[in-house]
């Protein structure tokens, strides 16, 4: 079947939703923008999730594809986008922002990520990547007058542009080596080295997006400069998109090259993972800003996830990405839930998102507080939350694949990192020094419904994923 409407319709629905949200924006009064548009956008997201139920395993013009693992991640992306809408609505309504474009931008970015997720062609992937990136640049700089925001977007845009070029250059080399932009194309005789050069450039272009070391330098500043709710959305979906694309590329390395270079590829992945985990775990410890803590946690988790590329046994050329996708899914849900919850507590212009200033906030808002704790526990890998299952499966896989040293160091460092999640969780429920004036927003309650619903959904889905891991762990 050359064209499959069902498989494509989620993307189409989201794109229509984006257009509708943007078109609605000038038609509404400033005061009602944040009351109305988010619900429209959110319902388009829910609508987009429906066709996935009926998706079939098929290709579209050999540009996009669909399989159960991708569908799983797509659900994660849609959930993150849903929660992101709630968070952004709350933030914007709190600040009485006059613009309502953010929702449309968010939907556009989500569309891009879904395209990245499903692509099986470098050009399709590139289009998805750019479609995901540009709206996010705009979202990061949503506070136009904030200096940190400007710095963040400047850094992100410049380095993002450079790495887009790097990626594209890699694609052109691959095209030169294979005569096609399709992922799984045959390398022409005598052009292996060209292919390898192209492949490595593509690899690092995607690792940049995923925020893995050594190309992680933008992560901390961008996460800190953006509004917390945008950080939440971006941290989850961009990582899913980039790593899903990376893994599709990874699965289609031509066998001629794979046979010759197994060991070097293994070393590259191992060292990327190793540096990411170490940098992430140790830099996070000294931070006070929660966004910064979670930024370094993002770097560390990127390290864990790329380890999934080597499972179950890369040196024998058997790769199965179930554990990695499970990890990615739980990470995306947990980080979007935790950061969106923090954005609920972070006050005017997100100025109060330090460990000291959210003290005791969870006590006055137990629903959001407890959900944040569930998400943090998942990030820390403490049972009974899904993050534990994800880590368990990933690390037991590493042991079976004989990567003992990596697994032991990685796990021990993840305990170091668990300390900073526990610290956030503790602070949320510590007795506050400023207990009374906690949440005096001029936000009407109705503007936080989506956020509360979304955060609760993340916590619930993390619990469900741990009780019934078979949903997320496709073996």
């Amino acid at each position, binding site marked *: 079947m050359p064209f499959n409407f069902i498989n494509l319709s989620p993307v189409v629905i989201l794109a229509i939703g984006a257009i509708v949200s943007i078109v609605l924006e000038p038609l509404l009064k400033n005061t009602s923008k944040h009351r109305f548009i988010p619900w429209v956008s959110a319902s388009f997201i829910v609508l987009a999730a429906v066709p996935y139920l009926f998706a079939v395993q098929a290709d579209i013009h050999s540009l996009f594809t669909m399989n159960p693992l991708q569908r799983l991640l797509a659900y994660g992306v849609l959930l993150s986008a849903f929660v992101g809408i709630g968070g952004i609505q709350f933030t914007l309504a709190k600040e009485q922002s006059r613009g309502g474009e953010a929702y449309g931008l968010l939907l556009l970015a989500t569309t891009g990520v879904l395209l990245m997720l499903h692509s099986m062609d470098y050009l399709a992937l590139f289009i998805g990547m750019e479609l995901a990136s540009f709206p996010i640049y705009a979202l990061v700089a949503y506070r136009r007058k904030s200096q940190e925001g400007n710095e963040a977007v400047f850094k992100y845009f410049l380095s993002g542009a450079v790495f887009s070029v790097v990626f594209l250059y890699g694609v052109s080399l691959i095209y030169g080596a294979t005569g096609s932009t399709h992922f799984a194309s045959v390398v022409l005789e005598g052009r292996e080295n060209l292919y390898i050069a192209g492949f490595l450039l593509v690899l690092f272009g995607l690792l940049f997006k995923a925020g893995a070391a050594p190309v992680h330098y933008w992560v901390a500043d961008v996460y800190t400069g953006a509004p917390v709710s945008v950080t939440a959305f971006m941290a989850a979906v961009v990582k899913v998109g980039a790593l899903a694309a990376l893994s599709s590329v990874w699965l289609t390395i031509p066998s001629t090259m794979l046979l010759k270079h197994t060991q070097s590829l293994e070393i590259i992945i191992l060292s990327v993972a190793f540096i990411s985990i170490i940098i992430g775990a140790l830099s996070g410890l000294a931070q006070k800003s929660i966004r910064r803590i979670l930024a370094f946690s993002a770097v560390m988790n990127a390290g864990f996830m790329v380890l999934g590329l080597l499972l179950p046994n890369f040196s024998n050329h058997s790769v199965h990405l179930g554990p990695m996708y499970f990890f990615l899914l739980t990470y995306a849900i947990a980080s979007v839930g935790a950061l969106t919850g923090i954005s609920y507590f972070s006050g005017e212009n997100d100025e109060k998102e330090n460990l000291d200033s959210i003290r005791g906030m969870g006590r006055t808002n137990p629903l959001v507080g407890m959900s944040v704790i569930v998400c943090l526990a998942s990030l820390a890998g403490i049972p009974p939350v899904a993050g534990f299952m994800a880590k368990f499966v990933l690390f*037991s*896989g590493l042991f079976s694949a004989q990567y003992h040293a990596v697994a032991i160091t990685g796990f021990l460092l993840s305990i170091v990192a668990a300390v900073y999640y526990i610290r956030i969780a503790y602070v949320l429920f510590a007795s506050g020094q400023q207990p009374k004036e906690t949440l005096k927003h001029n936000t009407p309650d109705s503007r936080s419904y989506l956020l509360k619903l979304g955060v609760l959904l993340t916590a619930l889905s993390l619990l469900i994923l741990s009780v019934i891991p078979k949903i997320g762990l496709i*073996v």
Partner: protein
Amino acid sequence: MLLHLLVLAPFVSALLMLASSGFDSKSTARLAIFFGILISALSVLSIVLGPQSTEAIEWFRLPGTSVPIFYSLASHGINSWLVFISSFVSLVALIAAKDSFGLHYKNFSMGVFALMGAMNGSFLATDAVLFFFFFEAMVLPAALLIAAYGGADRKRAAMDFAIYTLVGSAPMLLALWYMLSLSSGASVIELALVAQNLPSSTKTLLGFSFMLAFLVKTPLFPFHGWQAKAYAEAPSPLSAVLTGAMSKVGVFGFIYWLLPVFDLSASIQNKVLFLSLFTALYGALVAMRESDAKKLLAFSSMSHLGLVVAVVFTGSTTMLSTVLILMVAHALSSSALFVLTGVAERFSGSRKLQEMGGYASKNGVFGFLFVFAGVASLAVPGTIGFVGELMALISFWEFWPTLVLVVGLCMIFSVVYTLRFVQAVVFGPLKKSKTPCQRLSVSDALAVGSLLLLIILWGLQPNWISKSLQNPVEITTQNSLQELESEEAVLAEPIQVEVSQDAF
């Protein structure tokens, strides 16, 4: 079905408590206590019905090795009693917290139910991964409850507790991963088979990794850093649960997950035995000098549990029944003492012994209960503790008579610190109190009274407990039997052989 209920009902209760009113703490408390009674009744039922197991449901499958991980539970003599302890002590905590928690009661009860479910799960699990899942799941509710409702230094206490237990169980998880990469499953038998085929140095290393988790949880000597602080800072009803029930998970781990899986060499077992005895002495000595009432109880717990673990490693023929009776005795008396100390703390507004005293003159019931609980923890004849310690002495005598001296010394020390403690709190001139100490609430009295009643009851009829251990041997231990018959273990110390023949 019953076993599923024992694990799931606490979690369901926690969820149902979420829906209860946060403002009407009276009716919330009634609801929580009702659930607590139901679950305790179920646990009694599981003791009465004897060993049973559930069908194994595949939980998930490890992709690397295709090892299936099962959700399967089984009860045998010892763990159905431990489930009873955890359910009952949690019930007592729920009752005792009724008056002191006010608006926070709802959250407290949710935490206690979650903790109870995790404890029951780790007692009943037959799959190592499931066991570990529940074992770690205890950390979160306990740490949150300490951090939220503890005393002045609760932050440090909660963090220490969380970090100690997480770090302590990390090697166990690593070892488990390593063994799963070689194994076809995660039950005791399959893990033991894996361990059997490993070189002995690897096996010892893995055994130590498992052991560390239990050493921290129990805790034994060098790993007890979290304990005194956590027990002291936690609200008293929670301390009762922590010492009465949670510490038993560590001991249970030694019996069920360490000894049958790794046939540790005799010299290692002896070293652990001496470490536990040293812990018993050390705990008793520190308790004698301690001036903080709850820390005193914490160290006394440490001393008692040191003795329990020591008995585990004597390899005596009556090891299981001795250990079980000692654990039941300790759970009942120590949680009674913690609840009562919580009341005394409310009277005086401080945990310092110097600021307590003379409550018997104002409040006879409190005085009576306190003296009773204190005496019960001394193992006076007629209480269950006496039976346990007598059996323990016999075990040590069989092992090495000199040890009895050390153990006797511990017991004498325990008399000293307990009587000093009772004297300081109950007798002497009445210290000025923060709240009038005339009334001991009915619920507190009931909670403690039921514990003390059980102490006497089983003190007179200890074979009700030991009888439940004489059920047919279950499969898990047969394997270790075969293992041991072959090797030099016969020469050394036939612990598991004895266990499987006699006790189950």
